[in-house]
């Protein structure tokens, strides 16, 4: 418990540091990029909106500390300003409209890659040098080293066009509206398969190899020898003694990846015209949409920190050594 509270404290401070940096960055930039940015869109804005933006970027005459407090207050209310490129939608609304898809795609493919990859890694290490171990890692590394674009296009061509099994693009068919119906959920799932499959394909090799290597190191541990000496059944030694210990580093990498899911999968979104944060981030940078860029970065930061905290909680359950007695 003490451990978790200490970690939580650390994350809160990290988040605060990040907000503070976000606040000072535009105010420290040389020249006046903000004014230049405004000139592009000012004509479409109402005076009060211009005023709000100027405040967001410190172009008002209030003292710095007052601006700072107001800024933090806004962040906690979820108010990250107004998007310039998607004017006049607020940044939070733009992010909100995309983040669900990003979480769906990134989360699904991450969970599948992690579970499958780790399982294959455990088996490969346990039967070291046998079929699974000699065929899968090189194969998956080979697949993973293809340019993603190429791989995604090939999958799209094969399953989408030649075989026609799966839809080509977007997250759901045009004309359908969101609902809890079979039709809608099935449609979303069908649209999810190809993009998720390609992500799993390129990332699973890393998980498998990582797990395999830790697992091989773990099987050399003395407690594995003792477990064998105890005459336990091989499956129990493999899972309860070896894999249970070998999965600990994987849990940490899982947390990292989970946080970065929020950043979206730019290439996948591009190839499959799938909605998501990655594409949104790209356009916001291209359009000099500073509020949106900042908002997305802040969201990613928050997600990474939250994911890490989640992993800490899981870790405490998995590894009794970090529990403070």
């Amino acid at each position: 418990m003490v451990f978790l509270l200490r970690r939580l404290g650390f994350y809160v401070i990290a988040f605060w540091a990040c907000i503070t940096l976000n606040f000072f960055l535009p105010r420290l930039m040389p020249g006046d990029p903000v004014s230049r940015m405004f000139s592009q869109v000012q004509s479409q804005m109402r005076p009060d909106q211009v005023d709000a933006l100027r405040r967001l970027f410190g172009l008002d005459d209030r003292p710095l500390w007052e601006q700072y407090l107001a800024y933090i207050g806004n962040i906690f209310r979820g108010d990250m300003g107004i998007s310039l490129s998607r004017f006049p939608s607020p940044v939070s609304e733009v992010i909100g409209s995309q983040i669900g898809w990003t979480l769906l795609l990134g989360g699904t493919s991450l969970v599948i890659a992690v579970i499958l990859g780790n399982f294959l890694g455990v088996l490969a290490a346990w039967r070291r040098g046998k079929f699974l171990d000699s065929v899968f890692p090189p194969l998956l590394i080979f697949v993973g080293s293809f340019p993603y674009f190429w791989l995604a296009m090939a999958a799209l061509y094969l399953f989408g066009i030649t075989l026609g099994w799966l839809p080509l693009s977007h997250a759901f068919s045009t004309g359908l509206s969101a609902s809890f119906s079979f039709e809608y959920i099935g449609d979303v799932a069908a649209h999810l398969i190809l993009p998720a499959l390609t992500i799993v394909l390129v990332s699973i090799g890393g998980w498998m190899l990582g797990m395999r290597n830790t697992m091989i190191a773990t099987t050399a541990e003395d407690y594995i020898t003792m477990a064998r000496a105890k005459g336990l059944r091989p499956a129990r030694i493999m899972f309860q003694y070896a894999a249970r210990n070998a999965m600990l580093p994987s849990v940490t990498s899982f947390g990292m990846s989970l946080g970065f899911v929020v950043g979206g999968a730019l290439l996948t979104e591009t190839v499959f015209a799938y909605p998501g944060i990655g594409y949104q981030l790209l356009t916001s940078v291209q359009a000099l949409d500073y509020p949106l860029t900042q908002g997305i970065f802040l969201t990613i930061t928050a997600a990474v920190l939250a994911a890490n905290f989640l992993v800490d909680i899981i870790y405490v359950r998995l590894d009794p050594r970090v529990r403070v007695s």
Partner: protein
Amino acid sequence: METLTEQDRGNIGRTAAAPVLSVKNLQVQYTAEIGNVTAVDGVSFDIGAGEVFGLAGESGCGKSTIANAVMRLLQTPAKITGGSIELNGKNLLDLGEEELRRTRWRDVAMVFQSAMNSLNPVMTIGDQIVDVFTTHERMPKKAARERAAELLKLVDISPDRLKSYPHQLSGGMRQRAVIAIALALKPSLLIMDEPTTALDVVVQQDIMHQIKELQQRLGFSILFITHDISLMVELSHRMAVMYAGKLVEVAPSKDMLENPLHPYTNALMGAFPPLTGPRVELTGIPDAPPNMAHPPTGCRFHPRCPLAVDACRTVAPPLLPKAENHDAACLLLPEYVVPRERSRR
């Protein structure tokens, strides 16, 4: 292995009842790129029921290899290339994987050299005892927990500790927990490979006395491996001294201490302070132990032996009786002839 070697003859009749463990002519090789290392070369010994048998020798002479061979735990690059290991009359080298799994821990258990790390860090002590019962005796969890609590009491650990994880116990407690796990199925043989090296002296003494007491109470046999000769003499009934993959002397421990015959044993004992003095490891002999990839010809001890003669370079001395109940492998020692009046009896 039907044919008897000289070593077998030397051992015949030593233990009245059938031995619990009978190792004959054991040979173990490690396969390496630079050439095979025969780490154990023609080793034979018996351990009787209720006997504590010590195995001493410098680091790298092959003690752990013997222990792991008896547990059938050797993995590549190690391979048993000859001999037999009979436990309660059953040759362990003939057993298949599944039979072997059932035999392990039920008939022979082991406390490892690195006993500090032999507990799974993510499982409670209790679970690590319970899984022995649930695997070997198909015992329900609840009954297994009760047995586990009794076992902990046996080694003076409070049953509350069942719920503890290894890192929550002190080194000595962890070691005692491992001993408790080893005794779970009442094996007829317990192998202890330097069970206390990682512990401080006071805890060491404590644990060894406890083991001695348990051994006397429960009557199991022990194969006891240690660097610490004073501890070994104190604890074991009979002991063997090993040098470069071979046994060079086997005798009752008291004899070995008072009347060592082999020059190597003499050097060991000489390098050893009396029981009350500070403890020293078996490194007090000049020159390094031999390279096991290319062991010396003839008597393997000859490059370091103060008494070596020319013949020692070419003739390998067999382990033969040199006194009553006392075998040694040295060319200079005359063979023991059983006195007439005794042999008639």
